[in-house]
């Protein structure tokens, strides 16, 4: 039974678009996004919920896509890093990350930015402490976090982020 679990058709709403995809029940949301929808901005780091690089937004709140089965994401609005920039260009968080040099290898960046997006939606002008707490579950092995925190705080300010 277990090796032949039938695939199921699910409807995933990602970045405002609805997609019908055929998945086996054991496919994670991360795998569905990367392999079925070719949204490879979402990264797999540890694969066990520890590092935060696979973070996507589900109904506006950050979740670990490696810990979420694709079938469990049905009925929720998913936002990936590809869905952040608008027609007028980069989202102000993306712009702020670029300006502050908050990116080195870039692997943690999609998860960092989406986690920060959820923070700004809740607290529009976060302080340093709030920014640090928000990204406490996202690991970056390059930057030492300082520039990431600066970028998030600046993106929350109203002047030139």
């Amino acid at each position: 039974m277990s090796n032949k679990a039938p695939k199921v058709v699910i409807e995933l709403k990602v970045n405002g678009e609805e997609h019908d995809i055929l998945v086996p029940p054991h496919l994670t949301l991360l795998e569905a996004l990367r392999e079925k929808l070719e949204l490879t901005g979402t990264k797999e780091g540890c694969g066990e919920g520890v590092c935060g690089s696979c973070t996507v937004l589900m109904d506006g709140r950050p979740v670990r896509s490696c810990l979420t089965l694709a079938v469990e994401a049905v009925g929720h609005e998913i936002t990936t890093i590809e869905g952040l920039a608008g027609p007028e260009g980069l989202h102000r968080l993306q712009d702020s990350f670029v300006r502050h040099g908050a990116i080195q290898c870039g692997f943690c960046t999609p998860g960092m930015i989406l986690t920060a997006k959820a923070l700004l939606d809740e607290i529009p002008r976060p302080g340093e402490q709030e920014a640090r707490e928000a990204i406490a579950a996202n690991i970056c092995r390059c930057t030492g976090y300082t520039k990431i925190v600066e970028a998030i705080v600046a993106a929350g300010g109203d002047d030139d982020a």
Partner: protein
Amino acid sequence: MRLPAFDYLAPGSLKDALEVLAEHGSAAVVQAGGTDLVPRLRQRLVRPDLVVSLKNLNELRGIAREGLTLRIGAMTTLKEVMDHDEVQGQFPGLVEAMASVGSPHIQHRTGAIGGNLLLGTRCLQYNQSEWWRSGREHCHKDGGQVCHVLPDSKECSASCQSDGAVMLVALGAQVVLRNVSGERVIKIPELFSGLGDAPFSLTPDELLTEIRLFLPPPGTGMSYRKLRWRSSIDFPLVSAGTMVTLSNGKFDRVRLALGAVGPAPLLVNEADKALRGRAPDSEAIEEATAQAGKKAEGSIVENTVAPAEYRRKMVAVLARRALSAAIERAR
């Protein structure tokens, strides 16, 4: 690493879910939020034929007051528990425990209080990939006959590292277990078997549906304190949850529970005996915390990233921090 293949069902009602469990028994595993289950699937620590998701069971969500009882549905998310007015007002220790689980990524949607309570027991020698574990004989919890922590032991010594379980034991909470033929209500310590490799007394056809808390009397304070390396994500290396009631400036009742010190949360009855009727001064607290340290000493084993010797010393420290904060709130 892919997850192993399994069938998946998401029943639409509690009745349907219980029937599925009655039919499939131990071939099925229940998924609440999945934050504990998915890594265990990935590491091939569990290989179910069927995963039964509780995501559609809205009847298991929400918090309701009934007289002096607060009923929390097992699928209520950690965030919903933390944000609830009555929980914040009456059970600040539970808010602290929930806030210390994982991170906001885990608390707000996927992490459910019932799943946290039923977190699998953990061990540094067990919660590893299949490849890592394949390098040597399988341990008790992994279907083998040895323990890599205590080589002479015939039993598994994996630890309960659930934050919620420890605090709920300190609160004297109860849980409701349901199966197709009815329900039973038990105190949380009875939910734990004391065995590392089969930690719960829940039968394969039973579902934990509800947690019941009893409103504390006036003069009660509570708190939860947790030792870990990283300020998020990490499981506790040692933790302490406590609820104290003061009456006329003296201890009337003390419940102190410890986590990550054995296969079940450890209730330190000695603390109640040592403190009852005494003023909450530092001498009394030192005595109680020393008893906690002594009680946990033997059951703390070398199974986390922190040395057992250090954790043994930190038990009294965590107990003192928890008691001091609870006393402050009780005043």
